[in-house]
């Protein structure tokens, strides 16, 4: 019987939640890396035993962890226990080393971005927000980092190289940090075109490459943001998350700071589909596994009040690709609820009745085994949830 593995990153460790295909009874393991911020944990689609995790700390910096047994054991790639060094005494890999590319060969990417006060500020590596394993090779994985940049490893996370064309294409001085920092938080690998990658940055916008990361262009036409001098500018939009259904890689759905948007032409242009949402501020957005026009968001009151409207935690579902939304409330708290749902904290499984999962800053992970019609908390009292990913296991 098939099963589900939910990978949860929290402020104080990672947790692995497992169930069979019924999704009624759950096992909980963790905390893994107790006390560390676990920004993201994600598994490979081609090798479900292979997981990557971003572990970080304001004191000790960035650590990359890898599991080859579905989260039972973990190692830093290149430095497994008992094989710490090469005969020369050096680490076998440098899995924690993210160094921005400043070489002339890659175009000497610009080294400053806009700071909160409008002045220019040097690029400084802080952490990995998102890890995106390749859909075809378990040893290839992409990392979206703060300050915004895109890195790739082709050796299972042992060594990382920046895809410097993203910062090198010239708009970097206009990128500015959002409240969470200048983070590259969304990476979408086109399942049909290996050269095409979408990324999104807060607060710069969305970008696309069609040549596997050598060159990039902003894809923000149609976005409108009142918090930048020119609301329709090409650069500066605070995109919170972007989602795609694998069967239609040209159709993208976006939760912007404010506004829910969609594009039907690979991001060349966007239109607003907020429709009847009670508020269109939010962080997460995701797509049903089998219905490419069914999408989910969790509306949040405002940019100044990061909690659900009226204290009611409601997922909104549109079966029409936006504009027409219905509130999903069964099993979710409908009074005095003031948690947030962060941008990487929603995911779906691919079982027959699509499962939908999301985590809150209050430490709850909710699951729906019926595409959102009803919800049950798998766990209620974890540390604040930063990310949720799901693996559907054979």
């Amino acid at each position, binding site marked *: 019987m098939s099963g589900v593995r939910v990978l949860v990153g929290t402020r104080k460790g990672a947790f692995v939640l497992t169930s069979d295909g019924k999704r009624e009874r759950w096992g909980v393991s963790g905390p893994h*890396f*107790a*006390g*560390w911020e676990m920004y993201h944990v994600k598994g490979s689609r081609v090798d479900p035993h292979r997981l990557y995790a971003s572990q970080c*700390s*304001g*004191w*000790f*910096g*960035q*650590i990359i962890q890898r599991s080859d047994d579905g989260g039972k054991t973990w190692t*830093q790639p290149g*430095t497994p*226990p008992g094989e*710490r*060094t090469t005969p020369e*005494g*050096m*680490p*076998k890999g*440098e899995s*924690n*080393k993210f*160094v921005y590319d400043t070489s002339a060969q890659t175009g000497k990417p610009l080294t400053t971005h806009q700071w909160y006060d409008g002045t220019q500020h040097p690029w400084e590596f802080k952490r990995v927000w998102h890890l995106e394993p390749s859909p075809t090779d378990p040893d290839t994985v992409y990392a979206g980092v703060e300050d915004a940049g895109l890195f790739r490893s082709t050796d299972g996370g042992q060594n990382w190289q920046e895809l410097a064309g993203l910062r090198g294409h010239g708009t970097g001085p206009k990128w500015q940090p959002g409240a969470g920092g200048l983070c590259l938080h969304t990476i979408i690998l086109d399942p049909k075109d290996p050269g095409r990658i979408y990324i999104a940055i807060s607060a710069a916008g969305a970008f696309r490459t069609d040549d596997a990361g050598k060159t990039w262009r902003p894809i923000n036409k149609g976005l409108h943001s009142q918090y930048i001098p020119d609301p329709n500018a090409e650069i500066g939009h605070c995109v919170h998350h972007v989602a795609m259904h694998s069967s239609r890689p040209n159709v993208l759905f976006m939760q912007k700071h404010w506004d829910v948007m969609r594009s039907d032409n690979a991001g060349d242009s966007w239109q607003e589909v907020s429709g009847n949402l009670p508020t269109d501020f939010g962080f997460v957005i995701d797509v049903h596994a089998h219905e490419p026009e069914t999408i989910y968001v969790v509306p949040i009151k405002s940019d100044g009040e990061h909690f659900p409207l009226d204290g009611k935690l409601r997922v909104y579902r549109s079966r029409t690709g936006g504009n027409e939304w219905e509130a999903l409330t069964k099993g979710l708290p409908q009074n005095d609820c003031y948690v947030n749902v962060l941008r990487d904290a929603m995911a779906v499984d691919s079982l027959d009745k699509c499962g939908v999962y999301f985590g809150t800053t209050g430490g709850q992970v909710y699951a729906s085994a019926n595409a959102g019609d009803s919800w049950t908390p798998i766990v209620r009292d974890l540390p604040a949830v930063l990310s949720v990913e799901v693996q559907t296991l054979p």
Partner: protein
Amino acid sequence: MIRVILPGHLRALARVTAEVQLDVKGPVTQRSVLDALEAQYPMLRGTIRDHVTQERRPFLRFFACEEDYSLEPPDTPLPDAVASGKEPLLIIGAIAGG
């Protein structure tokens, strides 16, 4: 042998439960001790010093013999008591945060 006491999170990362002991060649300084530490426990590279600049991470401090050596140049000799193994070098996480 040089004795180093790590913060709890770094002990977990290095998979050690107590203080670590290091064989340091030549003068015993912050730099030589950290070089030896990272060679023996490569998973700690980047967690105490920046990968590229080799500067101390801002929220870490180096204490020894009831003194703060955090702001000393990295090639300044550490106290004789540290060099002889009588006293440990303590790597401390700043109290900031929670």
